[in-house]
């Protein structure tokens, strides 16, 4: 197992290189540069634009810029943001933690609810309960996140629910006790986490239900039932463990989406995460900031897949890595 993990990490290196190369060049090939907004400012002269181009290294050829970036990266330096003029790591650090808090909370909500519902729906196929959950799942799938978030916020204002509608901490946060601070953050977390959680919940429930139904139809379930096992044991020991495999793969993918899936929800609920900042960075071509975001996303994708593979090996004894 250990050699397998080591091999996977080694394989990741050329993969990351390829990803960085591609994203760097694609970003550079699309028209325009970070200085475009300044070009439209009546107060900015050509001279100044040229100075800034030089200071940002944008006057060099694209391969030259790439190798410079790569060289810095190997020295542990992600570069400096054009917009903020401070190291990229400083801009990203606190926001990344916030986004991960939000995504993990959303994942917990989604998985805690969708797996039991999926199992229930599969074992009670076509009952009223199943139908209700199925319709809810479709509603959940079809409501866009930003709209659902706005709807919840609107209801909070309309009915005077004592919940915050913006941000991650209240303005009195600094004066609260440590316990009060945690509660304060949890209160702020509720709306965005529920919005994000329910969004992936819908599809997870459907997949879980389908997998479960598939498993319940197989011969070993009939055998298990025939030899007189309890229904509980049939479902959770035999059907469930076979049905869960594809879910684990999906779980791996979701880890990679931890940083990227929340932009709109974050904007609407004012959660201070990476979302909108990363989007702006890519669109305004704040090169190193955008690259840092892309690379962190790629690393998470690779790690997520690895975790999923390891979990698969644990849950399914047939899978062995050597």
């Amino acid at each position, binding site marked *: 197992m250990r050699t397998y993990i080591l091999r996977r990490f080694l394989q990741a290196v050329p993969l990351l290189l390829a990803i960085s190369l591609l994203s760097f060049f694609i970003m550079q090939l*699309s*028209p*325009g*540069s970070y200085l*475009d*907004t*300044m*070009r*439209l*400012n*009546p*107060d*900015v*002269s*050509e*001279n*100044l634009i040229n*100075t*800034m181009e030089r*200071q940002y290294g944008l006057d060099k050829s694209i391969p030259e810029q790439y190798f410079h970036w790569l060289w810095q990266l190997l020295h542990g330096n992600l570069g400096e943001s054009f*917009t*903020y*003029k*401070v*190291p990229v790591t*400083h*801009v990203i650090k*606190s*926001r990344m933690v*916030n986004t991960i808090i939000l995504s993990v909370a959303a994942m917990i909500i989604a998985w805690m609810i969708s797996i039991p519902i999926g199992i229930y729906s599969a074992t009670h196929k076509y009952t009223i309960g199943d139908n209700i959950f199925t319709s809810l799942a479709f509603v959940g799938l079809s409501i866009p996140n930003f709209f659902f978030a*706005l709807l919840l*916020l*609107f209801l909070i*204002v309309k009915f005077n629910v004592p919940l915050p*509608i*913006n*941000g*991650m*901490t209240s*303005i*009195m946060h*600094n*004066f609260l006790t440590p316990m009060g601070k945690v509660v304060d953050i949890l209160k702020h977390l509720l709306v965005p986490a529920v919005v994000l959680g329910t969004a992936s919940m819908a599809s997870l429930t459907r997949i879980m239900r389908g997998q479960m139904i598939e498993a319940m139809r197989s011969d070993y379930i009939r055998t298990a039932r025939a030899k007189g096992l309890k229904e509980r044991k049939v479902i959770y020991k035999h059907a469930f463990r076979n049905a869960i495999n594809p879910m684990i793969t999906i779980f791996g993918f979701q880890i990679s989406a931890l940083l990227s899936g929340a932009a709109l929800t974050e*904007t*609407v*609920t*004012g*959660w*201070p*995460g990476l979302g*909108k*900042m990363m989007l702006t960075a890519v*669109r305004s*071509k704040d090169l190193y900031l955008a690259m840092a975001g892309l690379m962190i996303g790629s690393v998470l994708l690779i790690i997520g897949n690895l975790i999923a593979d390891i979990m698969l090996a644990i849950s399914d004894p047939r899978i062995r890595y050597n």
Partner: protein
Amino acid sequence: MKKLTVFSLILIFVLSFALTSVVVYGAGDDVELLDPEVSQKPQGKHGGTLITTLLGDPKTFNTIIAQETSSTDITDGFVFEGLVDRHGVTTEFMPELARDWEISEDGTVYTFYLRRGVQWSDGVEFTADDVVFTFDVIKDEEVPTSTRDVMMVDGEFPEYRKVDKYTFEVEIPKPFAPFLNNMTTFIIPKHKLYDAWKAGNFNNMWGIDTDPQEIVGTGPFTIGEYKPGERVVMLRNANHWRRDPQGRPIPYIIRWVRVISESQETQALLFENGQTHFLGVRGIDYKRFAEDAEKGNYKMINAGPTFSTNFLVFNMNPRNPKLEEQPWKYEWFTNLHFRRAVAYSMDKNTMIDQALAGFGEPQWSPVSAPNKVYLNEEVKKYPYSLEDAKEELRQGGFTWNDQGQLLDKDGRRVEFNMVTNAGNTVREQILNIVAAELRELGMKINSTPIEFNKLVNQLLSEWDFDTILIGLTGGVEPHSGSNVWPSHGHLHMWNPVQEEPATEWEARIDELFELGATATKVEDRVKYYNEFQEIIAEKIPIIYTVTPNSLFAVRNTLKNVEPTAYGGVTWNIHELYID
């Protein structure tokens, strides 16, 4: 509202903490303030917390190199101040860090008498050395600031010197009327930044990773805390040089919490929920807010048109690379009758109704409406009339075929592209309205929103567009358009960076900008800029559409407010108080 009072109550309890921190670095008793400014507004009550919203995060606290309004909204006028300032209502010059100034007879020497005994927020005295230092930094080619370009007179950076501790002098090579406007530049503290500048490290100073305590200004507030993506908390500068009518230091407001919310919907909800004191209202929300004004204890204010513009520009550049294939487009766009026909087909009322939800004004002159001093309201106007448009087209040699399609004098179908930047919904709607009207005239219009960077490229370096709908932000000083209107300007969008003016009227505009800049009397300048506005309206290389109005909802508990499109609600923040 209930919530707001609860907030305030908790705040009073908590403020003792905040206050101590202000007092700690507010010690500087050896400096005596000799030239305070006394507020002319009614006496207010000291104390309280103001809560407002911001649309984005600051990118830096270094005002000299800041480029985005999201950064300057935090610092300019609140933390840092200029020698002079403009009045938020009249836009006239007012003394700020300079108590008075003189301009020599020949208009080349400006002498500023600084307020004596003004302190930086850390207690160090503000003197002419700080002003000299600020100019040194701006002059430094390694510092990326647009202020340097603006300061240039005749291609030269002005000479400046300290006369004595409280007197600062600037000398420019020739009379240049807009120069006083440059003295609104924000002054930074020498004692905090000199070493970094000498070490070549100025551009990295006072970024968002700086401890807010390090950021020192003369303005009414200091930065107390910045939480990325959440809020900026500003604290009263106890050393500020303004006084209330009873002679006590202001600002009245002790703590100003500026909540960052990138979604305008959420900002509106925060205001409705009673959590903020005022809100810039969008046209589409106006009615909803007006209905609840009494219940929510606030008033609605329509402060009139803003400086934002939306206009259509034609490519009249003979260097357009696409002309090789389609030389006729150049003929159409340089045909005055053709442009006038387009101007007559602008249905500005529909634009205001649909794109601005009824809250906007048609724009006719290149000078923005809030610029009270220089706006010429007598320029030629082109009221919406498809009949007049057709008449102009006929005069321009255009005809129609049986299907009503417009043909030029060689029998070619009139067809061209019209683009705007994607994501700006107001502009996208205006684009659709313009395109629909032009189709009525028999033209074939391919209208699409495109990516902003691509549009800027087409406009400023490729020069291969047909027509673009875009906007520039106007200002109070007409000379700030000197990269746009004179024919050598790189933002002279219809035909940029010309070596010799292509037309007589462009030559005349070049002259007028020269005259307007060197005239010293405002009446003379008004005359020159009036003629410039007439020419643009007459020749319409740029066709203006509509300007949104500036709308505010302001809580009745916030007193002494006088919102304008120019200054917003907070231009006199030091005089605002909470009742």
